[in-house]
């Protein structure tokens, strides 16, 4: 196990999936389930002659934050881009299911159990979605994860943490959107279609995928915070993500409803006000939306220190 105290000051962006999993929960509390010694390699990669990893690129386990059991899913971008196949998808669903089941049993046994002692799920995303080497199985697994998230509703809070290299795209973009709360760093990116595909669809004049600033303006943490998609924008350290997660651990599941962006008819109506705004503004750049939200100097705001940004940014009200 890595040294927990040293992990806390590490850049979240640079951390491996396992370091994130260990560092997010209390010191010494993380127990890996389905870890490398279980040798859960993808049989489909084996059949294709592709390199395999014993955890299939997803670290799963359970730890504690205070009294709260925290079920952790952490994706590893360095292994085939954090892509999700049959094994990784089964691990994600298995963890969410266990959190729900454990919650049900604890609540039945201890009806007065305080929220801060009930299970919570934390997902550290780093993925482009479906693993193409086993695309069909990966797609079917995504549907199961969405189903599991709906089953967790009003029982077990699910928190998304996004601040790793690959960001969170493809089918996993749906999964992140469907969680209760989203914590991002400014280096996190969240979306559906990756920049290269948008460029291919719209042409380089409309969207230049090699323009890093443009890519971050469109899907990066600061932008998603302005849009209200990210609930919290934290510094790029394990400690900062952990502190935010620990704050959330104090809340009852009912408090998470107000943080959601989708998942009810009312929220759909709210998002549709955003869609109407999109049709009206026809933004050629995310800056147009920032300006509309009341930020007169979106360029300065985007480039300034994060602390200043958090203090002065106006978020889009829908």
């Amino acid at each position, binding site marked *: 196990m890595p040294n927990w105290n040293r992990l806390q000051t590490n850049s979240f962006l640079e951390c491996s999936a396992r370091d994130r999993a260990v560092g997010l929960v209390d010191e010494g509390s993380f*127990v890996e389930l*389905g870890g490398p010694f*279980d040798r*859960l390699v*993808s049989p*489909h990669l084996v059949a*294709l002659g*592709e390199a395999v990893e014993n955890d299939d690129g997803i670290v*799963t386990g359970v730890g504690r934050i205070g009294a709260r059991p925290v079920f952790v899913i952490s994706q590893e971008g360095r292994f085939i881009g954090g892509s999700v196949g*049959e*094994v990784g998808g*089964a*691990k994600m669903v*298995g963890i969410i299911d*266990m959190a729900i089941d454990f919650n049900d049993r604890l609540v039945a046994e201890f009806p007065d159990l305080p929220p801060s*002692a009930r299970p919570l799920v934390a997902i550290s995303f780093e993925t482009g*979605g*479906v693993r*193409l*080497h*086993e*695309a*069909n199985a990966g*797609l*079917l697994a*995504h*549907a*199961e994860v*969405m*189903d599991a*998230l*709906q*089953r967790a509703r009003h029982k077990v809070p699910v928190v998304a943490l996004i601040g790793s290299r690959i960001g969170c795209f493809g*089918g996993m*973009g*749906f*999964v992140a*959107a*469907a969680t209760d709360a989203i914590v991002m760093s400014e280096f996190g990116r*969240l*979306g*559906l*279609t990756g920049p290269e*595909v*948008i460029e291919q*669809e719209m042409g380089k004049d409309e969207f230049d995928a090699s323009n890093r600033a443009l890519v971050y303006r*469109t*899907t990066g943490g600061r*932008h998603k915070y302005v*849009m209200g998609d990210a609930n919290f924008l934290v510094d790029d350290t394990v400690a900062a993500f952990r502190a935010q997660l620990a704050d959330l651990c104090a809340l009852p599941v009912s408090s998470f409803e107000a943080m959601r962006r*989708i*998942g009810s*008819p009312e929220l*759909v109506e709210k*998002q549709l006000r955003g*869609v109407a*705004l*999109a049709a009206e503004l*026809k*933004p050629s750049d995310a800056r147009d939306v920032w300006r509309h939200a009341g930020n007169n100097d979106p360029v300065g705001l985007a480039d300034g220190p994060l602390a200043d940004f958090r203090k002065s940014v106006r978020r889009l009200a829908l």
Partner: protein
Amino acid sequence: METLLGQGRAAIDLIVDAGSFTEGTVGARTFDDPDFGPGAVVGTASLEGETVTVIASDAEAFNEKFPVVYSGIIGLEEGYKMAQAVYATLAADAEKAAASKRPIVLIVDTPGNGPGKVEEIFGMNKATGAYQLALAEARLAGHPIVAMVVGRAISGAFLCHGLQADRILSLTSEFQTMIHVMPITSVSRIIKKDVELLEALAKSNPVFAAGPAFFFKLGGVERLVETIDGMRPAIAAQIADIRKAKADKAATALTGPRGRGALGAERGGRTVRPKVQELLRSEFAAVEERFRPRAN
């Protein structure tokens, strides 16, 4: 051989009882603006006499406000419109017992989600994500949901419009139906493996090849339908079967994504999934005590 690809509206009429489809009305809700989410067709019909909600894609529609929407693509408005149709269905039967909630029929012919810059700025992932959550909620509330693939069921669009159903039916590939994440030629280019090798491997392993037959083997499609006329009775039979499965408190017959997971193991296409989950359960059982409330 005939095909329904690109003909979502025609497919609705072929599936529901003749002349029964009322577009733009679901329960108490009406969709009156013809320019709102034109790529999504929602409404109410009867199917073998029973009232059902119908959701389909119109490949001939073009969304003037969001020009990435054409050819059946699900855009921002379309995704939310489809979600609204599901929530309207839930509201319409809110007072009914689980066993008598109306079915939802998804007619699937869509090539993708809206892939644009404005879509990413505002969050395309939320629009069709909202639709998936609505479908999952309706399914868990008791509404039988059947997806009928009549054309294209591609990647993320199939995830939104299809894969949250209780059961999925598909016309066989003779009707030019397509179910895949990517065509095998694109997979080949990206993962750097020869197409010939992939095609040879696909004979024994259905996880990456394109087509309804491979999804059937994986449990991703419950049944293949061989004739156009066969669609209506097949959907009606699934609705009856779903109701039976949901009424069974022991839940021995699963429906929805996890039912298809179990089917994947049964059909030999996805055998590792249940073993992984069983292993996680047994490992957690061994340490569970540590995570139970501590005595004071």
